[in-house]
Structure formats: C-alpha cells, structure tokens
C-alpha cells in the first residue's frame, strides 16, 4: 500500500493501482470513455486527464498512470475542466447522429413522438395517450389542429412522405374517448393545498392548470367568454374541431379538480390584486390574442367589413350569421383560411381570398390551403385592398396588383404595389384576417406587468412576468401562434409556479442536450436508401358536397388498421443509447458547446446491420478501440480493427466487410463495451 493525496485528501491505495483505480475505489469520479477494467490501459480518449505534482507533463491520463508513494493528484481544476471539455467538444464535432428524434426536438412541447408511435404500433393505445399527456394534455385537440412542426422535421421526408404523426395522435386520443379508461383522478385535492388563479381558459391556461393540478395545486380558471377553450372554441371552426371533442377534452382536464369560472373578465370582475387578496398565491395569465388589426384603408369601418377574429368568435358564440353574395377575405394565414371556409358554409355564393404575396409565401398550412381550394375558395394572389367602397354598406373593394421585391426582415420578398394597376371587385362582405394582437388593455392597470410594443407580456425564460408570483404564457406572450406553443408555455409556467410556491429558486429547464444530424436539407437521403417506400396513410374526409351543407367535421379519423400501418412507417430516429451514452453524459456534465467546430468536416458512414444482434453505426464511434480490444484480447476473434490514418481513422470489420462476413459470433461483448451508440444490440421485436 502507498499513501497518495487526491484533491487534498489522503488515501492508502494498492501500489499496483492506477490513479483512476485509486480515485474510483474512493468514490472520486474521473470521466473516461476508453478505459475498461477487463483491458489494459489504452490511453486514447484523454478524458481522464488529471494533474500530478512534479510531473513533466501538465496533464497525465489517470487510466494509465500508476500511483507512487507520496503522489499528489488533482482531479478538479480549470486546466483539467477545460481540457476535458475541449476533448468532448472535439469528439462531438465528428459525431453524426440524432440523440433525440427530430420530431420530438421540433415539437415545442417536446412530446415523445417516437415512443407513442411505437406504442400505437404495438397496439398499446392507452399507454400511447399517456405518453402524449406527459407533455400535452390536449391530444384530441392537437390531433386535429396542430401545425405539426414534427412532420416537417420527420426524417421519413427523405424516403417518401412524413409519418402522419398528427393523425396517429388523433387516432389514439379518439380511441381513448371512445374506449379507453379515462385517467383516474389521481390527484387528491388536499384541503390545505395552495391555490393558483389562471386568467383565460385557452390552451395555455388549460395546460398550466393540468400540470399544476397534477402537482396537487388547487386551480381556478377565470374566463371572460361564456365557455372555456379560448381560441380553440372561439377561433377554430367546428368543421376542424368539433365542440363536443373540445368539451370532452376540457372536461377531462377539469376532472383533476380544476374549477372554471366563465363570464369573469379581468379588469371588470377582478384584478390580479384582488385574486392575490382572495387567497390565490400565484397567478397565471393566458388571455390569448383576441384583438385584431383593422384593414387600415379607406372605408374599413363601414358595415359589412369584419375582422376574422370577431367573425369566428361570433360563430363560437353560436350567433346566427347568414352570408350571401361575394365574400372577400383579406390575408394569407390560417385565420384567413378558416374565415373563408366558414364563409362558404354560411351560404356565401362566392368566397375570394385576397393575399398580397404569392401562394408560396402564404403562412397558412399547406393542407388547409388545399382544402380551401377544393371547397371552392378562389385565390387572388399579389393583390392588396386600397379601399372599401359602399354607401352605408360594403359594395366594392378596390385592390391593387403587387409585385415581389427584395426580401424584407422576415426573409420573404416584400410586396410592392404596381402603379396604376388598381381594379375593383364587387363584394357584400369583407373579412380582414391580417393579424391578431393580445387584448392586453385589461392589464394596463396592473402593477409590474411589462407590456411590449406588440402588446405582448414580457416574460423571463421561466415565464415569470415582472411581478413576483405572476406568470404568463400562450399567445399573450408570443403573439398569435399555434396551439402547441401555448401548451408548451403553459407547462413551463406550471413548473415555475411550482418552484415559486415551494419557495425554491426558479430554474427553467435548460435547452435539452441534443446532437442532431441537422435539418432535412443537411442530411443525405442516400442514408435512407435501404428503407422500403410506403405511402403515407390518407385521412378519410367528408365529401365536398356534404361539407358545405354544414359544419360537420371534415377529417373523419383513421381506421385502426391504417393507424397500425402508419405507425410502422416510423423510422425510429434518435439514439438507442441515449440513456447510456458516455459522450452525452459527460457532454451535459461539462456543459459543452455543440457548435464550437460547427463548420468542420463530419464523417458520414454507412450503418452495418448485417448481424441481427449487433447494429454498427460508425457515425457515433469515438475510436476508443474497446470493441477492437475486447474482441481480440478477451474473445480471441479480432473481428474489428482500426483502419486508415489521421482524421480518417475508423474502426471496421476485417477488410471492410460487413460484420456478418467476419468471424464475429454475436457475443455482444463489444456492444456492452461501447461507450456510445456506435455498437448496439438490435431489438428483436419490430418496435
């Protein structure tokens, strides 16, 4: 035994031990990727560097340096930390893969898409819905109206078409409504649990309340309109989101002891102060963006000129509205499409949509635009209104032709009027859908809430407003955007509120550590060459004639058999080794930057799945050589070896053959040893 000092502490250790052995046996963690106790020290990763007093070199590898009597070792210092961090950054700069599936990364709420699709493929529908609910309490709603950033990111785009993620979400959500056992009300409301007030009953508040209730808080939602749902009820038309589906989903959320008080308006019926005075210990503001912009042209205030927000809200309020003649909708977003399609259903003879840019620039969902077109909406692109003419009531709209100039700050080409190209269209109704703003006037009186020029509430990254105990999320923070953003914001706020009410520091979740292959245009589709093409499932739809007769839901939902087929189209992106990967673990621990060497060369290798039990993905290899050494030194086979030199060095089976053509006996020792996902035991079941 010899006496050594590690980080100022004295230890007696075996004289044959290395510094790494000595540290580990005394509970001191030193990171390493290339060391394996079954093997001789190799010294390739250089992650285990430590400082030893009196050594010639400033840093030595702990895995290979033997202890000496009186040795003084430092395992934590700035020099060590920076060397290890840089080492990890270098390894990660040539590490090609997706830690998390791109769909999950693209989802603002981080819904574990791959997992629930896998469960759908296995027929475990209840479990699938529960996975969704961990991040999104409105699966039936989102399954119908989500803008689906996940599908835009789906790697299957490089094979044929993206997996119909949203259809699958709706499928399980509907299944649960019909067959499933609603989640039991697990939260037992404690008498003394703290009370949270939520203002507005839209998706942000519903989400926030749902997750707070799950943490045993007593939630009360105050809603100005007659029924809860916010824009889900008063902005999205029935034919896209039937009210009974919405009602059921809200009811499901409210089962968790959440109380909704409708007809209660901030500033009129209560204030934040009054809420805090009434025993609420935190307040969440989720009042959405229910205001709208006027057209801003002459005659925009005469009768027959409406805003889409008001028009759709009236629909939600079940007001009887009849339209006839020609209706002109101005705008290119989803609200414009919703208004146009709604107008068609209300008896308008003709609906035209006037947009100042071209189709390619329309912010509305492609699917929605197509549906509107099918239903008979006519598009007038590169046109903008100049004035509305009419004596007492709208009769004509004067427009001007536009042409696209240089890109503006949004990156889209700026529309410029073509001088002298004015033209007239006879109309009876004009619906302006040119943007929504938060109705934040009700907040002006409130102390400490900072309102931006765009009328949104300014929040910190924990969704806290300037006022202690008051949080906000949803459209009132982001400006009008999509449902899933509001849901994500609501959940984030719930976590902050929980921390606030527990009296601990509010620490918003840091950005998730994620290595990505890049966006779709950065990934070579040759990578997916071997994947068999299989068309995306089509959503059964109501026939056009039936649609226009009323407000029946257009999309009818997937059949079980199709849902199952579709679920099997998932490529299961994301790394199998996500929970075991050393590179990821230490990468997070050392706070590495993933883009320090972002313009450097990254290797792209083909994946070898020639042996069923071993999936070999050299893109993730850190060249630690554990597999090479285990296979040769422990197994005596030597199926793998180092090849090439310099940056091109890699590990390959003998003579570059597939593993199946080597002496490999699938023992799996290499898989066990691999510190990343470069070698993985393939799953024996389909999903």
């Amino acid at each position, binding site marked *: 035994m010899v006496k050594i000092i590690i980080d100022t502490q004295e230890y007696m250790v075996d004289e044959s031990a290395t510094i790494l052995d000595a540290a580990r046996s005394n509970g001191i963690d030193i990171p390493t990727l290339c060391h394996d106790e079954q093997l001789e*020290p*190799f*010294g*390739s*990763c*250089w*992650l285990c*560097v430590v400082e030893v007093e009196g050594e010639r*070199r*400033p*840093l030595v*590898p702990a895995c*290979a340096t*033997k202890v000496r009597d009186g040795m003084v070792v430092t395992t934590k210092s700035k020099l060590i930390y920076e*060397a290890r961090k*840089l*080492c990890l950054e*270098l*390894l990660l*700069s*040539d590490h090609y893969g997706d830690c998390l599936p791109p769909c999950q990364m693209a989802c603002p709420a981080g819904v574990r898409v791959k997992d629930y699709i896998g469960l759908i493929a296995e027929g475990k529908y209840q479990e699938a819905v529960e996975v969704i609910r961990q991040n999104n309490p409105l699966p039936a709603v989102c399954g119908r109206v989500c803008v689906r950033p996940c599908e835009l990111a789906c790697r299957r785009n490089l094979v044929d078409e993206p997996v119909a993620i949203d259809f699958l979400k709706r499928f399980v959500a509907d299944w649960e409504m019909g067959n499933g056992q609603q989640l039991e009300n697990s939260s037992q409301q404690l008498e003394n649990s703290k009370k949270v007030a939520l203002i507005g009953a839209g998706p942000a508040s519903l989400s926030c309340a749902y997750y707070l209730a799950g943490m045993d808080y007593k939630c009360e939602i105050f809603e100005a309109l007659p029924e809860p749902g916010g824009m889900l009820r008063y902005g999205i038309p029935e034919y896209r989101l039937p009210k009974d589906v919405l009602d059921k989903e809200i009811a499901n959320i409210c089962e968790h002891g959440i109380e909704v008080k409708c007809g209660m308006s901030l500033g009129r019926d209560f204030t934040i102060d009054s809420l805090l005075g009434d025993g609420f210990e935190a307040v969440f503001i989720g009042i959405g963006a229910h205001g709208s912009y006027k057209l801003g042209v002459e005659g925009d205030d005469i009768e027959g000129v409406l805003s889409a927000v008001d028009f759709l809200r009236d629909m939600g309020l079940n007001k009887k509205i009849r339209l006839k003649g020609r209706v002109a909708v101005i705008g290119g977003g989803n609200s414009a499409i919703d208004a146009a399609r709604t107008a068609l259903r209300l008896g308008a003879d003709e609906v035209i949509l006037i947009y100042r840019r071209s189709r390619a620039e329309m912010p509305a969902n492609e699917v929605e635009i197509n549906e509107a077109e099918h239903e008979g909406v006519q598009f007038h692109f590169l046109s903008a209104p100049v004035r509305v003419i009419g004596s007492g009531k709208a009769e004509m709209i004067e427009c001007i032709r536009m042409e696209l100039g240089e890109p503006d700050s949004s990156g889209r080409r700026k529309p410029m009027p073509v001088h002298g190209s004015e033209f007239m269209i006879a109309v009876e109704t004009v619906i302006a859908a040119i943007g929504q703003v938060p109705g934040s006037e009700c907040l002006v009186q409130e102390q400490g809430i900072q309102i931006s020029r765009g009328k949104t509430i300014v929040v910190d990254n924990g969704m806290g407003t300037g006022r202690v105990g008051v949080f906000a999320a949803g459209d009132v923070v982001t400006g009008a955007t999509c449902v899933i953003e509001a849901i994500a914001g609501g959940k984030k706020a719930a976590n902050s509120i929980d921390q606030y009410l527990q009296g601990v520091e509010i620490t918003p979740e840091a950005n998730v550590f994620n290595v990505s292959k890049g966006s779709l245009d950065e990934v070579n589709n040759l990578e997916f060459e071997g994947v068999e093409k299989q068309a995306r499932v089509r959503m059964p739809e109501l026939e056009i004639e039936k649609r226009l007769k009323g407000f029946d839901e257009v999309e009818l939902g997937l059949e079980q058999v199709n849902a199952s087929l579709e679920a099997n189209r998932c490529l299961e992106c994301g790394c199998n080794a996500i929970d075991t990967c050393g590179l990821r673990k230490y990468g997070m621990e050392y706070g590495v930057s993933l883009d*320090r*060497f972002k*313009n*450097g*060369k990254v290797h792209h290798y083909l994946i070898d799945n020639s042996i069923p039990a071993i999936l070999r993905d050299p893109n993730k290899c*850190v*060249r630690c*050589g554990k597999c090479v050494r285990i296979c040769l030194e422990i197994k005596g086979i030597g199926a793998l*070896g*180092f090849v*090439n*030199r*310099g*940056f*091109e*060095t*890699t590990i390959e089976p003998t003579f570059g053959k597939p593993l199946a053509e080597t002496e490999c006996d699938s023992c799996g020792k290499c898989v066990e040893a691999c510190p990343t996902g470069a070698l993985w035991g393939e799953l024996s079941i389909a999903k």
Partner: protein
Amino acid sequence: MQKTRIIVGLGSCGIASGGRKVYEQLQLGIDSRGLDVILEETGCIGMCYNEVLVDVVLPAGNITYKQVTPKMIDRILDEHVIAGNVIPEWTITQEDEICLNKQQRIVLRNCGKISPESIDEYIKQGGYKAIEKVVNGMSRDEVIDEITSSGLRGRGGAGFPTGIKWGFAAKSSGDKKYFICNADEGDPGAFMDRSVLEGDPHSVLEGMLIGGYATCANHGYIYVRAEYPLAIKRLKIAIEQAKARGFIGEHILGSDFSFELEIKEGAGAFVCGEETALIASIEGKRGMPRLRPPFPAISGLYGKPTNINNVETLANIPWIITNGAESYASFGTEKSKGTKVFALAGKIQRGGLVEVPMGMSLREVILGIGGGVAGKHEFKAVQMGGPSGGCIPSSLLDTPVDYDSINQTGAIMGSGGMVVMDDTICMVDIARFFLNFTQNESCGKCTFCRIGTRRMLEILERIVSGHGVDEDIELLEKLAQSVQKTSLCGLGQTAPNPVLTTLRYFRDEYEAHIKQRRCPAKACKELISFVIIDERCKGCGMCIKVCGVKAITGEKKKLHVLDADKCIRCGQCVAKCKFEAIIKVDRW
C-alpha cells in the same frame, strides 16, 4: 603505379540527377578508348546541389567535376584522363570546397568517399576495428561508459543520452533481447539517414553490433522504409558481406558474442518512427504508439527488453569506440556533444547534407555553408525538425545549433531537417502545409491528435483562403496547446509546433490574412490577383503560351491583357515572363 579511378556519385541524389546515364557513358567511353581505368560508384558526399559529381583520381591528385552530364564525358576522358589537363570550368569551386572543409564529418566520414557496396573499402578506412576492440577487450559496462561519457544523444529527435538508454536495456533482465535500428526516416525534407545507409551502410551495422554487445541483445532489426530501395539494397549487400566475414553471426570474431540481423521494411507510416509504434509494426500489428511506461528497455519487441537507436546515432558509435569518448566530446557544446548532420533544403543556394559540430550558429550553417537563400530573395525563416519542428525567424539566426537552444526557440532539433524559406513564403500557409502532413499521419488513436489537428487545419485553411474570423487565432492557439498537452506520443505532442512558432514569430501575417484579407508574402492564391504592368510588357506572347486557362490575350508585340476572372493564379506566367511584367497584387 596506382591505377586511375573514376568515381561517380550514385546516392539517390546522384541517381535523380542522371548519375546512371553518366556512369554508363563513362563505361562506354572507357571501353571504346581501351583505357585501364577503374570505374566506381559512391554515395552522397552532401553536395546534392552539385550532383552528378564525378571524381577523377589520378596519381597527381583528386579532381571533382560537378553537375556532370553524359555530354561532358568525352572531354573529361580525352582532356583530363588521357591528356592530363584538368577542365577548370567544370570542377567544383573553391567555395564548394571551403564549405566542405567547414564541416566536421564523423557520421558522414566515409560517405561519398568509399564504395558503399565494398566491405573492403570500409575496412580500409578503419571499419570493423571498433567491434573487434569491443568484443576482444571491453566489458559491456565499459562500452556503455564510453558511450555515456562521449555525451552522444539520440539523433532521431528526442535527444536522449544514448549510453544511458543502453544502460537501461543492459540492466533489464530477459531471456532474449532485441536491438533495433530505426531507419524510418519520415520527415519531408530530411534525408540524413538515407544518405548514411546508401553511402556507408557498414558503419550502421557496426554500430548495431557494438550496441547489441553492450546491451546483451543477440537479435537485431533494421526497420527501414520501403521507399528507400537503394538503402535497402545496399544494406542487404552489406549484411551479406559482414556475415561472410564473420562480423555478423555466431561467435563474432571468435568471441562469445553472437548477433543475427534482419531487415524489416516499413510501409511508410510516419508514426512508425515512434518507437512503440515501430515495435508494433515489426510485430505485425497496426503502427500505433502505446503508453509508456513500460519503456521498450523493459518490455519492447514481443514483450522483451529492446533498445532502439536511430541510424545517425549508430553511425557515430564505431567512431567513438575507435577515437575515444573524449575526442567525440571535444566537439559541440556542454550539453550537446559531437556533430549533427543536417539536410539543407528549400530555398537554399547549396542544398544538401552538412555535418557540423554542435553549437555552430544557424547563421553559419545556413548562410555560411548553405550559401543563403537562392536567387535575389531574402531569408525569412528556417523550419527545423521537420513537420514536428518549428519556424525560426531571421532574428534568431545566431542561435547555436544544440538541443537546448533550439528547443528554446519553440522548434526542435528533430532528426535534422532544415527547410529554408525566403520572403515569397507565407508563414500561415507553411504552418498549414506541415500540419496537413502531421494530421494525415496521425495514427488516429488520441482524440486531440486525431480530431484536434484536423480542426486546427480547418482553421488554417479558412485563414489562407481569406475566410478567417477574429476568434480563429485564439481558438487555434488553444487547440494547439491542448494537442501538445494531451497526446500520447511525440507526433501529437509536437504536431502543433509549426503553428505555435509561426504564431509566435509571425502573428502579424495571421492578422493580415484575417483582418485585411491580405497575404503579405503574396503566396495565398485566394488573396492575390495578377496584373500586367503595361510599360514592362513587350507583347512576347510567352505568358499566353503557358496560361492553361486562356486568361491572357493579346497580339504579338502588343500589350497583353489578363482577365482576372479567368485567372486561376497558378503563377506560370509570372515564372515565364522575362520582363517581370506580371506581378502579384492584393486581391481585396
């Protein structure tokens, strides 16, 4: 009376300069004239810039002709060999001779003098006397003491005292021990070892025999790169001859000492010059360095105690034994004894091999012996120690050439390559060039060496192409220091040297590339344009002829025009124009 001898320099440099044809022409000329002359070949004497060298050895004296071509043979034979009249305009100059005389030739004592394929000539020069002295009268310890007190340090680069290294191997116990000669000379621009092997192979064999005796090793390997076919051929001949004379084999010279010797041809991986990688390569494994300890002296080839010395180190050994440690130690400085062979290359007037006492100044070696920069350009820097070395600027030309002084500059002695650079060389680009070499030659084992050098190279590529950003220098420096600190073997530990030394001495050039998108040396293609100076252009059409992309147009005797958009900045026109009418200007 002694016969007339004609000796042709047929080292690789001589052969590359057309030596074989000269030799054949001489043979023809001698035969057709019926002359009674001995025609011989020899290795490189070091004046590579003067090859093909032909010595005519008459009783009246020895005359050396330089830059001989086959056309010159008839005159040499008729006028000199037959009529006895030297052709003065063809002989080497007095200056050449002075340069030779300034040198101190211990390692190169026989190179260019004797026939490397004749053991007799080696013996005539006192060869194999040292092994005889050792096996017949010196104990192992005495030999080791002699080498230790000579102060000889390893000439492969690291400069570890040879005697002490031998002592470790000698003390190490084992049923079998190995003695390896490292002839894996891999530095671009270095050819000291090749010249010794081609010019005097027996001196290396004798050095190995003495080392084998001293360390109790009975089995030797010469690990020589396969790219040195002539060296291998001459080594094989030398081994056969030495075996036939009883210098290699059982009971050498009647003693108890036996020694077998094998040649192992390397496949040209630079990293195999590192001793543990070299050992792995002999064992048939991938040439990859391993952690030390254990050092090869304890556990080397096949796990047995092993000593490894470089060619030049070994060529010194017989001389030290014969002339004594004291004579050897009389050359050099306090900590760096003896002589060192340097390969002068690059933009130098007299490129070739020189052997000088340690401690001579760089100025004396480069400007004195080497004649300074060729042409009318200015000396800018010298890269010492190969791709792992560093660039020493002109302000440090008075640095004495010894291990410690060179290390202080940030460069290393290395194996002795000196690549001389003039003011047309961009120091950022030269750092990129050397780093490109080492990063390609990394064995790929260590993270920093495998990926770190690559990322450094990418930064340098960015800078020379005019896309560098302000943070690049800092990141480059940080990476360089990290690669130095956290690499397993000498390759990684020294690979950043060219970058660090150019950053130290030529930082302004890096900054000019980044901040002004300007290459001060006007060498980086992306940062320069070529223009024709109207007054100078004579309309000769030479530039039009050489331009491969038709970027230059114009009629004969009229002003030519260069289309900058088509121009690929290859520089052919500049080289061809006699009137210096085409010049490089900053592009941005």
